[in-house]
């Protein structure tokens, strides 16, 4: 028997499972005639919208997710542009997460198509981590027809980095003792927490590769890049002790903000409430969820905290419905007069998972306004995806709510 290629003395074993070009692969799975063709999900052939996923064939043309569909069209004129079908992706995602939870309850989904698993405790039962990883890949392929790339390592950082090294259909094992050497030559951007801006600064400072961080004097690095650099140095040394935290289906989605100074102005509070409601609705839409209950949380300067909630007649992910509910709660239900607030929060609760009963109860008065609002939500989501949430519904020119 060949010895398992894994240091059995190491206390932790973490897997990062990442589906390959998930949305695009699902589309190919459901329509085999697309196999081998550049599939681009998100956006229309007319060049509107944002790319949510691109098949590996499309990536050869330089198309990648979060790119404007217009640009993708230029790069890949023969691409097959498809609208996302979130319901279908969620259905397969649930099936994949269920497979993962069959190995260990310690599954932490990062998004719809990737998750960490802590298999430290199941080595006796299931074998060495690389064996478990190969088995997971085989089962996902057999049960869903999709391929995944898996990184196996002694911590989350290295596992995630590993899953990305040999995509698609990869299986990369980073032995705990080799972590540091394995990543030393990788460009600095591959470190978690180093974005575009930081990488430019690092390169200007002579730090081009991950390993360079460990060669420079830590005191000088801190002076130049701030105390955060020590965390990056630990990662560069292959150290990361963050636990895998199993998460369950979200029970609520919320957003709150503590003000720099207490705010008493009703118009300003309303604008902030609108913004929070809009953010919450956007998060629901991006997760494919709807909610029946809107909860407003208000904290006064004396730290007393009140929550007020309203239950909507039907589950919704509409920005207007949330905003109206938040306003109603803020302006009529707090019941403590117009006192200044130090914190305001909006939470959506009573969540409805995608595909759960959508009764098509007709309305007597027609709902052209609601249909229009849904169209506006879609446009705002696309704009927000491209430019960040600069725009929001009902924002008026010449009035910056952050200004006063």
């Amino acid at each position, binding site marked *: 028997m060949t010895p398992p290629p894994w240091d059995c003395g190491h206390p932790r074993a973490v897997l990062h499972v990442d589906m390959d070009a998930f949305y695009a692969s699902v589309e190919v799975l459901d329509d085999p005639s697309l196999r081998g063709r550049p599939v681009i999900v998100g956006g229309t052939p007319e060049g509107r919208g944002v790319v949510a996923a691109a098949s590996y064939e499309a990536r050869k043309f330089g198309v990648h997710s979060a790119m404007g569909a217009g640009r993708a069209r230029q790069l890949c004129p023969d691409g097959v542009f498809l609208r996302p079908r979130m319901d279908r992706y969620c259905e397969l995602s649930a099936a994949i997460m269920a497979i993962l939870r069959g190995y260990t309850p310690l599954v932490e989904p990062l998004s719809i198509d990737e998750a960490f698993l802590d298999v430290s405790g199941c080595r006796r039962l299931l074998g060495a981590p690389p064996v478990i990883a190969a088995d997971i890949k085989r089962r996902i392929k057999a049960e869903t027809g999709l391929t995944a790339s898996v990184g196996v390592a002694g911590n989350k950082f290295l596992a995630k980095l590993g899953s990305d090294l040999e995509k698609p259909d990869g299986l990369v094992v980073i032995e705990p003792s080799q972590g540091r050497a394995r990543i030393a030559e990788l460009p600095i951007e591959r470190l978690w927490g180093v974005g575009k801006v930081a990488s430019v600064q690092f390169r200007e400072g002579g730090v081009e590769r991950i390993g360079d961080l460990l060669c420079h004097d830590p005191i000088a690095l801190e002076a130049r890049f701030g105390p955060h650099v020590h965390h990056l140095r630990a990662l560069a040394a292959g150290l990361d002790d963050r636990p895998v935290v199993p998460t369950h289906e979200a029970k609520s989605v919320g957003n709150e903000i503590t003000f720099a100074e207490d705010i008493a102005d009703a118009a300003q509070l309303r604008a902030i409430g609108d913004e929070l409601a809009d953010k919450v609705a956007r998060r629901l839409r991006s997760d494919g969820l709807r909610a029946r209950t809107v909860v407003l949380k208000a904290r006064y300067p004396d730290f007393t905290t009140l929550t007020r909630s*309203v*239950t*909507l*007649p039907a589950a919704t992910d509409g920005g207007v*419905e949330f905003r*109206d*509910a938040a306003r*109603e709660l803020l302006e009529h239900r707090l*019941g*403590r007069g117009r006192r200044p607030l130090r914190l305001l929060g909006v939470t959506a609760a009573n969540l409805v998972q995608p595909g*759960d*009963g959508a*009764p*098509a*109860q*007709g*309305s*007597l*008065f027609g709902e052209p306004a609601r249909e229009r609002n849904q169209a506006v939500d879609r446009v705002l989501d696309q704009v927000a995806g491209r430019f960040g949430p600069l725009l929001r519904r009902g924002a008026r020119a010449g009035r910056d709510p952050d200004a006063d």
Partner: protein
Amino acid sequence: MKFEIQQEDLQKALDVIAAVVPSKTTLPILSCVLVEATKESLTLSATNLDISITTSTTKATVKDPGRVAIPAVKFVPFVRSLRPGVVTISQKGDQLTLTSGKSRLTENTMNVNDFPALKKPEEKAALAIPADTLIDMINETAYAVSRDETRPALMGILWEVRAASLTMVATDAHRLARSVRKMEWKVSGDKNLIVDTNGLRQIPRIAAAARDEDSANTEVSIFVGGSQLSFRAGSTVLQVRLLEGPFPDYQAVLPKDNDKHVTVDKADFAQAIRRVAITADRVTSQIKLGIEAGRMELTARGTEGSTAEDEIQVSYQGDPLEIGFNYSYLQDILKNLQAESVVLSLKDSQSAALLKPVHDTGEDMGVLCLLMPLRLAGD
């Protein structure tokens, strides 16, 4: 303040007002009943700011006039628990003492001046309406109001006060109930009001109390003024807040070309619905009606593979039609239509159904209900 009253009389007066006392409130004074004793009468009031009720009785013997705000939470159940007999209530400083035989309650009162001033309605230009008619109209509509707090106007009942009629309309956008009655009253100018539904739900109780006072009290007087609608029945006054509009244009959605008329026995229909609804999908509450000449088939399909079917006789001549409904909406309507038979007028599976009671006399009582279908799967 000090007065004596028979336990039964005090309890009756409290029963009229106590339901209005809010169980949870951000204004503590609202959890009190206001007791005002004068040489002539004893007056009890309660309010939740949306609804206020004031009732008076001359059956108390007032030794020492005064006003006091008594927390209702212990006072009311204590009075209800007493044996018949004379109850003496007296106040010294912040303390209230109630004695009846050997029973005694001591309670701290609240600052009576904090109690919201209840504006007395201007009791002129009253509109008189038989209490039974008013209660019928409320029952015929109130079940259809919306519970959507984000659309407050739909939580109320629309009143259209006209020269010789009164119309009430309630809707939650999925269903609508309308009730019209001829009135013998003089109204100057048409008035459209949206009236708080919980306020209107107090009317049966105040009407019953008035009849209990004097069996000749069979009418309720209505006063329109400012932002509220006031009702007097005997010695009780109910004030109900009016809601801000707009109320949707319901006239525009009353169907004019529903030409498929199905007449059903109300009890048969209700029982068949109750049976098939047992397997209906819990989320959609959907049942399907398949209607053809002479018969109606009811079907409900559950999510776990169970199906229930039933069939009833109906009077119908037209083309076959299938239509889906939320069964609980249908049940609400049938429960509140006062008739042996009901006529269901349909256009197609997508358009609102019109339901009306059928009366032996053929007389149109002015009650109608609209119900939007639940689109059948696959439509």
